[in-house]
């Protein structure tokens, strides 16, 4: 039973955190479609796998420093949960630095989830802040993904133990003329114990706190 519940709940653990993200805003008027795969790492059936979450997103360069994006979690949809991710990436700062340039961006967003069985709807805000450094086709980035649970109580009127989930994140992007490939590692909920949970989460650094999320993304540039 543990394995399947691991998939079920692990698949949802912070899955609302978009699988991969826009770090550097795209130029004004440009559009792209992004496919992402990955999730929290769990021990399952004798091996370690990332929870296989998939999502598809559309990004639009509203201004040179502002990209609007909307995504749909496909894995959730397959199980009757409509899971939308709407947000905007805003470039706060960008400057030349040696052979490339560095920048800082924020991404306020929210997740809207509802199921097709009872139409129970939840709303989760998120706020990401990322620093990045680009050299030609390569971009490395790091920052914090912040996810918020607005409800104060959970089942049986128990107190929801955690409201703010902060998730240190690092990633790498490689860019070609038409495509962008992305890899991302995220330490999910490092200040929350993960060892007394039904899913058998991978616990990084030998500590029973949080778990590691691994994600990959492929983006197709449409009108670049």
């Amino acid at each position, binding site marked *: *039973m*543990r394995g*399947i*519940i*691991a*998939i*079920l*709940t*692990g698949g*949802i*653990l*912070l899955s*609302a955190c978009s699988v991969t993200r826009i770090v550097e805003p795209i130029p004004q008027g440009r559009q792209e479609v992004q496919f992402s795969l990955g999730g929290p790492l769990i021990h399952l059936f004798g091996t370690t796998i990332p929870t296989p979450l998939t999502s598809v997103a559309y990004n639009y360069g509203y201004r040179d420093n502002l990209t609007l994006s909307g995504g*749909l979690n*496909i894995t*959730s*949809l*397959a*199980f*009757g*949960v*409509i899971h939308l991710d709407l947000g905007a990436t805003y470039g706060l700062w960008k400057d030349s630095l040696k052979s490339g340039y560095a920048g800082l961006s924020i991404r306020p967003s929210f997740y809207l*989830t509802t*199921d*097709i*069985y*009872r139409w*129970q709807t*939840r709303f*989760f805000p998120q706020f990401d802040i990322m620093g990045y450094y680009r050299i030609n086709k390569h971009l490395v980035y790091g920052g914090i993904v912040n996810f918020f*649970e607005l*409800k104060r*109580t*959970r*089942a*049986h009127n*128990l107190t*929801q133990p*955690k409201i703010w*989930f902060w998730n240190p994140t690092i990633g790498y992007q490689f860019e070609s003329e038409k495509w962008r490939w992305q890899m991302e590692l995220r330490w999910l*909920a490092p200040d*929350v114990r993960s*060892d*007394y*949970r*039904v*899913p058998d989460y991978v616990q990084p650094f030998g500590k029973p706190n949080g778990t590691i999320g691994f994600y990959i993304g492929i983006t197709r540039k449409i009108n670049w």
Partner: protein
Amino acid sequence: MRKLIAVGVLVGLMTFSCARLDSFLFNPYKTDEYKLDDYDGKLQFRLGPEFDIPQDKIHLFSTTSQGYKIWGIYIGDTTTISSDTVILYCHGNTGHIDYYWQRAKLLAHVGGKLRYGVLIFDYRGYGKSEGEPSEEAIYEDTKAMMQWLKDRGLTGDRLVIYGYSMGTAPATYWSSHEGPLTPRWLILEAPFASAELMVQDGAYFVLPKQYVTDLEINNAEWIKNAKAPLLLFHGTEDKLLALDPHGKAVFDNHPGPKKAVFVEGATHSDVPVILGIEAYISEIYNFIKSY
């Protein structure tokens, strides 16, 4: 055209996205023959010869539940059920009767060898029992076993219902809903509070359980209506169904009388061993004698 196909795929997914993983939650192990003490599978513990049960006190039987043949073993004398006190053991999700046989033998030694009758059985899809497991099946199959006992003269005031892990669901359910018998005592080991809390605890977020499962298991709410006094065992190192929140939510919601035995260092499956065999037996015996 491409847009149309894309929209069609999405609409199709939404329309037909009735995929649920509930049936995979169950972990039934099948067997053609129960081996009991000769079972060589992995066990949490094996009892010594002092806990052996005489062959003439082991009764393999079957009954039907919603048309399916399900199997059980009664430890004791089936001709004296009408005057005996009986412990009905609802096992967990892993394995089948063989896997829980040592536990059944322990219960057959509460208050002395064969003082109480013990009935252990396999739900639909487990062991030799026919059919496929489901949430409804575990309730109905437990009910069928209660009916089997009732048909042999047992009354509710001599029935102890014991649930372990997944088995806490039917045990709690039949302690709070009308069935063939109303148990006089309720013993739960490593219970989970509800499907909803399981989802929320695993996901960290307050998610509706319908996002994940159709299971309606809700021990923490059902137990509010339980008439039977409660004895609850839970290991403090249970990493599958943590004492807090699961065990504590169930215990807190029981109206009483009740007793909790939180076993320091015990995990999900070794409470009797970590607590100590004699202490475990004594707790159960004292509980039964007290109420």
